[in-house]
């Protein structure tokens, strides 16, 4: 059986090599199944590719896509529920962290299986903390603390130009994700269960965005303008910022690249701690033949088995998707010497399902634009989010 799988990469490190390697091993163990794993860019690109290929009549049989693209894929009638495919039993489906399964369930069915899942964590430079006279073991736990600590971490050169920022929250690519994190912390959910209702201009959302904007505009601890998701890690590794919010999926890459001591912490709280989950799930496409669907499930099971989940987590930093993975020896050893690795998992208890609505790509774009409009001071947070709400409602009106 031949399978084609598209997958995205959104973090640093030789991720394609890891996947290729795992696929190779799977094929060695299952000589009757051939998997062609195609790296297709970031999440959006991969979704674009998969959709386009489907419209063009040559869809892949399975893909790793945003867990949140569920509604879109369902609307497109692109996928089949995993639990309807022979080989996907209840027991297996229940072995995953429930927080990760949230995004994969709808209409009483399980449509996808978590794979490269993450939460947002706070990376901080311990050496910088020391240098600023802060306790490197006490990362900020609240919004207020984060501002306070950041202010101390900002470093300027003789002519008053900033050489190190306090904190950076990326606003390109995944701005909606960061906004959601802030909103959760502020006690606001961004959408309903049915994925056809959003609350972007709720006062608490606006407040959350205002806080973010103020980090640059008022407090001067973050650079003005859009902060680039892709290069932020490099900024952090180069010491241009003392703290960053980023996906835990980057953990291994940061670990490899850091020439200083760094810590990983849960995101700070306002009303509560919190982070949306994030990342990609496995989907199986409807157009695949029954044999292919079964082979796909076989492959997914293999990929998410505890040993592989542990390996995957160690090699990237993504959260291993089953509790069982953390019980494996490799993982235990790894955590022992690198405790940062479990922060994201621990944060799961505060985690909330990621923003997932119909026409997800468009809504993400609308929110991202609003975030960027706000951080670049093109619009006030209120204006930006009002407009985002208006546009989103227009898009979502079709799904009510």
């Amino acid at each position: 059986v031949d399978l084609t799988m598209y997958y995205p990469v959104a973090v640093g490190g030789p991720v394609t090599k890891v996947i290729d390697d795992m696929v190779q091993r799977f094929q060695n163990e299952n000589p009757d199944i051939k998997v062609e794993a195609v790296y297709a860019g970031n999440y959006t690109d991969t979704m674009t590719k998969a959709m386009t290929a489907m419209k063009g009549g040559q869809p892949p049989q399975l893909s790793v896509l945003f867990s949140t693209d569920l509604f879109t894929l369902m609307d497109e009638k692109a996928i089949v529920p995993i639990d309807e495919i022979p080989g996907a039993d209840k027991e297996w489906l229940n072995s995953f962290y429930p927080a990760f399964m949230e995004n994969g369930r709808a209409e009483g069915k399980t449509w996808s299986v978590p794979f490269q899942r993450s939460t947002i964590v706070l990376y901080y430079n311990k050496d910088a903390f020391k240098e600023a006279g802060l306790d490197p073991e006490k990362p900020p736990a609240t919004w207020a603390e984060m501002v306070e600590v950041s202010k101390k971490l900002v470093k300027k050169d003789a002519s008053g130009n900033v050489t190190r920022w306090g904190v950076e929250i990326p606003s390109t690519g995944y701005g909606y994700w960061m906004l959601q994190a802030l909103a959760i912390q502020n006690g606001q959910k961004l959408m309903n269960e049915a994925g056809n209702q959003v609350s972007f201009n709720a006062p608490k959302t606006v407040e959350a965005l205002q806080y973010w904007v103020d980090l640059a505009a008022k407090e001067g601890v973050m650079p003005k303008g859009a902060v680039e998701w892709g290069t932020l890690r490099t900024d952090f590794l180069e010491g241009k910022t003392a703290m960053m919010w980023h996906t835990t999926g980057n953990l291994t890459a940061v670990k490899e690249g850091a020439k200083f001591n760094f810590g990983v912490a849960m995101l700070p709280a306002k009303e509560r701690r919190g982070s949306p989950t994030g990342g990609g799930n496995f989907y199986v496409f409807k157009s695949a033949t029954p044999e292919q669907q079964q082979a796909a499930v076989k492959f997914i099971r293999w990929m998410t088995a505890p040993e592989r989940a542990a390996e995957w987590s160690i090699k990237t930093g993504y959260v291993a998707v089953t509790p069982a993975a953390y019980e494996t020896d490799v993982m235990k050893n790894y955590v022992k010497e690198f405790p940062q690795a479990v922060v994201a998992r621990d944060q799961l208890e505060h985690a909330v399902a990621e923003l997932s609505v119909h026409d997800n790509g468009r809504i993400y774009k609308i929110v991202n634009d609003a975030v960027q409009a706000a951080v670049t001071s093109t619009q006030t947070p209120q204006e930006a989010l009002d407009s985002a709400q208006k546009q989103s409602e227009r898009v979502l009106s079709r799904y009510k």
Partner: protein
Amino acid sequence: MRQQGHSVETIAAWALALLWLLPVAYSLWSAFHPSEYATRFDLTAPLTLDNFARAWNQAPFARYYLNTVTLVTMVLAGQLVVATLAAYAFARFRFFGRDVLFALVLVQLMIMPDVLIVENYRVISALSLLDTIPAIALPYIASAFGIFLLRQTFKSVPNELVEAARVEGASSFGVLWRVFVPLAKTTYIAFGLVSVSYHWNNFLWPLIVTNSVESRPLTVGLAVFGAPETGVDWSVITAATVMTMGPLLLAFLLFQRQFVQSFMRAGIR
């Protein structure tokens, strides 16, 4: 007085030229030095091919090269044949509907396939060609620019030459093959250069119609490879960048005189 004006201009010209070369120079610098020198300039920095090796190993560049070369060859060969025949018809035949047809050809000069990505995607998919190299090539095979250029050239061939060939017994096709084609050599070269560099560099359309490594050309491969999300290090990205533009750049450096001249002589205007 006159002399001085000259030297001021010479200096200005040189300054601009150096500025113009700076990006390329920089990319070479960073590709050939270890990554810690990507942002630091130090003449004693050690040279290395390591970045190339890493880029080469991290993505199937060999395959991308093969794809791009295949693509460029396919496009050029197709364009030359199609444009030659069409240009010959336009330049030398009086036939029913000629002017209307020519106007319809010119439409493509303004509204190129690059703009019609949405519908062309449907067409290609209707032809079941998605994710193949012919899919990238097909919309460009009939090149209005090529037809236009060759028609101009063919029209400038003195009628006497055609008549001489006819008196000597050449058929219609003989005239095309023995007179027009050899005489349009410069135009063919110029057009070939434009076409090769255009399709070597083309991006958006190949990005849309290709999904797999088997059909992806270099540019798409590079974009996928160098996406900032992956945070691949600068030196490796520039190495990949240099690899992508290398053959073209090298060919241009070697043949720049011919390149520029055939451009000018073909009177692309």
